[in-house]
């Protein structure tokens, strides 16, 4: 078996990045920014952290294409769930609904 072996230095580097991003997201949350900025900065940093964990701690970066497909399919279904729910709820105020 020839699996990719990530050296400890690589894992520690990812870990340091995760810690820095955590400190950053908590610090930024206390700044006086618009509400939407807080939401999107928080989500962007969380997505960056999750990507680091999935790609390197969970070894997707070094995995077979089939693993990529399964991991991305999970993300695809989640996107479908969130996007279709939000197209309904976010657009309700845009047009007058008869009887409402």
């Amino acid at each position, binding site marked *: 078996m020839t699996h990719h072996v990530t050296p400890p230095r690589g894992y520690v580097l990812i870990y340091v990045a995760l810690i820095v991003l955590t400190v950053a997201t908590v610090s930024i949350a206390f700044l006086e920014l618009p509400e939407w900025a807080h939401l999107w900065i928080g989500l962007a940093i969380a997505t960056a952290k999750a990507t680091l964990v999935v790609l390197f701690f969970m070894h997707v970066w070094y995995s077979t294409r089939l693993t990529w497909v399964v991991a991305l399919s999970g993300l695809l279904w*989640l996107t479908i769930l969130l996007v279709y729910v939000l197209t309904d709820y976010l657009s309700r105020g845009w047009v007058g609904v008869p009887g409402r």
Partner: protein
Amino acid sequence: LAASATQGHVAHHFEDAGQQHEVATLGMWVFLATELMVFGGLFAGYTVYRVSYPEAFARASQSLNVGYGAVNTLVLLTSSLTMALGVWAVQTNRRRPLTWFLCATVALGTAFLVVKGFEYYGDYRDGLMPFLPGNFDPDEWKPHTEPAGPDWEPTQRKKAPASSSQPRKRGAFEDPENYDPGTQRMPIETRVAFPDQVKLFFSFYYVMTGLHALHLIIGITWLGILTLMAGRGRFNAEYYFPVEVGGLYWHFVDVVWIFLLPLLYLVGTAHWHH
């Protein structure tokens, strides 16, 4: 087949250890994709209600303790590091470090749950558990001298009580005489103005963190078994897919928490100051 006959750890339906490893990790990824949908449903529900009641969610989030959430994030990220290093140890045939890295991961996971327990207790003490009778509702904090009359209407809750000097009950076990509204993490005005919306936030908070904690308990049990197996020298560079697969589950639980931190704890930290 002759090769697999010499390797006792390869199940008979696999060609070799490599195929077995690939199948096991792929199976775990399929399972994690379904797990993503379990949590995804909760995240979708959270999103809908946060869009509907932004101010109530921000005020409710303010009353959570950001310190607990941040510290627990660091604890969980560190546990992911020790888990990843455990995989490195077994890949390079370092059996004793593997056992210690797994041990550390279990310990850090347990530490997370202990911190969460303290946090839940604080939430209880400060009257932030709406599902417990008399723990959250300002109406129920009033001394039971005047019973609710027949003309009582839910709309009365919109009005803030005239005198906040009246002794109120804090939690089920608290002494009403010693109640001080100033020590409340969530001011009474918020509870009165957004009673149901705030309860909705806390429902998401307890269900999402609770389901996450349940996953952590399962992960701790799983890694505990792996630790015992590693201590007996069951794993090596050829046969370590149980460690790899356990690690995948552990990191997934970490990823869920990475999103819970900004969505539950960091919503109203800069806005709607009391």
